[in-house]
């Protein structure tokens, strides 16, 4: 026990450094302004209050930005899921010329330097009248999540034995019906976790939302709104942290749903590479 003490202390330091910033955000969000501005900070919720959440939620356009973020994210993820399912099926279940090249391109697309495309994407959006449009953001988020979605779904599909489909085909199902009745139910957990990861990426995206929504302020998304917190809340740190908390909540929820896959599934996949 005593021999393990230094090790456990080190572990404690890691836990504190990891958790403290998030704890501090939540704590500040619940602390009355008077206490936030006190000379000595308090490290536990002595007088918890919801006033900052009220300020954040009642801030100009909060619900609009929330709705924008949700709409763009959901549309992008669903689109990516549909398109990726087709491609993943072709890759995992069929033999064709160019298959290897296609997979390689998907892997390379996964590493695409999106940040280097900000300028040309701005010009393309402007030329096609897509500037300040949420649909442009949706398309971009669709493309940023697509390669990852294909790779993951291909993995899930490959783990479902093709014999199951063949049996259904023998029983007189068409290929589409066999897929819908046999493969899709088995694929559901994979679809679920893949789409949730896509959701997180799109929900968090900042660079394009910041570069492509310029004039029409009502079309901004939450990350961009949050980045301008000093314009919105001034020096009201309680409200700023309440807004950050509300922004983080859906992501945290998803991580809780996915917790097993986060630490086992994806990482196990990474290790086998």
């Amino acid at each position, binding site marked *: 026990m005593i021999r393990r003490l230094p090790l456990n202390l080190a572990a404690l330091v890691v836990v504190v450094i990891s958790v403290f910033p*998030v704890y501090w955000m939540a704590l500040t969000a619940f602390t009355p302004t008077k206490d936030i501005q006190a000379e000595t900070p308090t490290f536990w919720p002595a007088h918890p209050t919801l006033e900052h959440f009220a300020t954040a939620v009642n801030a100009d356009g909060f619900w609009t930005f929330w709705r924008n973020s949700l709409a763009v994210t959901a549309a992008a993820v669903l689109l990516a899921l549909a398109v990726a399912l087709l491609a993943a099926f*072709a890759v995992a279940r*069929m033999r064709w010329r160019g298959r290897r090249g296609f997979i390689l391109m998907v*892997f390379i697309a996964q590493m695409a*330097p999106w940040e280097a495309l900000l300028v040309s994407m701005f010009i393309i959006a402007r030329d096609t009248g897509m500037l300040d449009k949420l649909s442009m953001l949706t398309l971009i988020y669709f493309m940023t999540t697509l390669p990852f979605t294909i790779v993951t779904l291909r993995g899930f599909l490959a783990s479902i034995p093709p014999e199951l489909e063949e049996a259904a085909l023998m029983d007189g199902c068409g290929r589409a019906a066999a897929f819908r009745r046999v493969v899709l139910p088995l694929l559901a957990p994979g679809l679920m976790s893949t789409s949730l990861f896509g959701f997180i990426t799109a929900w968090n995206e900042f660079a394009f939302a910041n570069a492509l929504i310029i004039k029409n302020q009502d079309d901004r998304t939450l990350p961009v709104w949050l980045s301008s917190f000093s314009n919105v809340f001034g020096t009201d740190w309680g409200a*700023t942290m309440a807004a950050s908390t509300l922004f983080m909540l859906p992501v945290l929820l998803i991580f809780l749903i996915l917790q097993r896959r986060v630490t086992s599934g994806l990482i196990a996949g990474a290790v086998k590479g």
Partner: protein
Amino acid sequence: MSAPSLAAGRRETPATGPPPAAAPPRRTALWPYLLIAPTVLGAAYLLLYPLLRSVVISFQHFRTGELIRGGAAFVGLENYRAVLGSEEFRSVVLRTLVWTVVNVVLIMVISTVVALMIARLGRRMRLAVLSALVLTWATPVLAATTIFQWLFQSRLGVVNWLLVTLGLESFRDYTWFADGTSTFAILVTLVVWQSVPFAALTLYAGLTTVPAELYEAARIDGATSRQVFTEVTFPILRPLFGLITSLEVIWVFKCFAQIWAVSRGGPDGATTTLPVYAFQVAQSLHKYDLGSAISTLTVLILIVALITHLRRMVKQEGEHL
């Protein structure tokens, strides 16, 4: 940290070999191509076209006038000459390299130590550390940037309070974000804080796959802990180290959101890295041609830096397919 990037680590799932030969190839001549058509079209318009457009614009004279009226004229290598000839660009490249090296080295060293530590912990403490890392991992980039701005706030920030309480009186009301070096340091802290969970958890998962017999054998042969790491653990996990390092290089090198949200590349350009610089030149100065040239150079530098990783990936994938 973004999720696809996490899963970029997922290179090979258990059963992703070639589809079994038993799958009947009948009537499949056209189908696969129809199935991948939406993906190919999407990538062509939303990835390839912007990439090519960026390259084309980098060879044109493209300012506000051309943006509105069109009809940009080709000017050959003029933009590249202007960019490469400027003192500013060279200092940005240097800063980007320093930024990448400092971040990646810190991320890899800390993650390795943390992963080795987790492997030695008891069950309860291990669960606590894993949960804490996942919590950090789950924190959205923009939430993390606002949190760090609050932590390092000059008058009410908890960091300054702590430093003053520890007797460092000079940190009373210290304005971190007014100084280039301290802003740079905070951004490094932020990026390392956000990146360690993925790397540490992945390395830890890798550690658990090393057979315990190997450790025992090394111990029986009288190896020290250090020798066990350099002679047993590291060689086995070498491919994983390579993969994670490459991924971290990509993420850190092209990092934009954190820098833009915290400092917009300031103060006085002290945190301007290549992606930030390209955006500034194009969006604030309306020199879209120079911005595109910088973006193109950014991609080229990244490709050169990762050429070994890309080559290995192509080779490995070739073997698996």
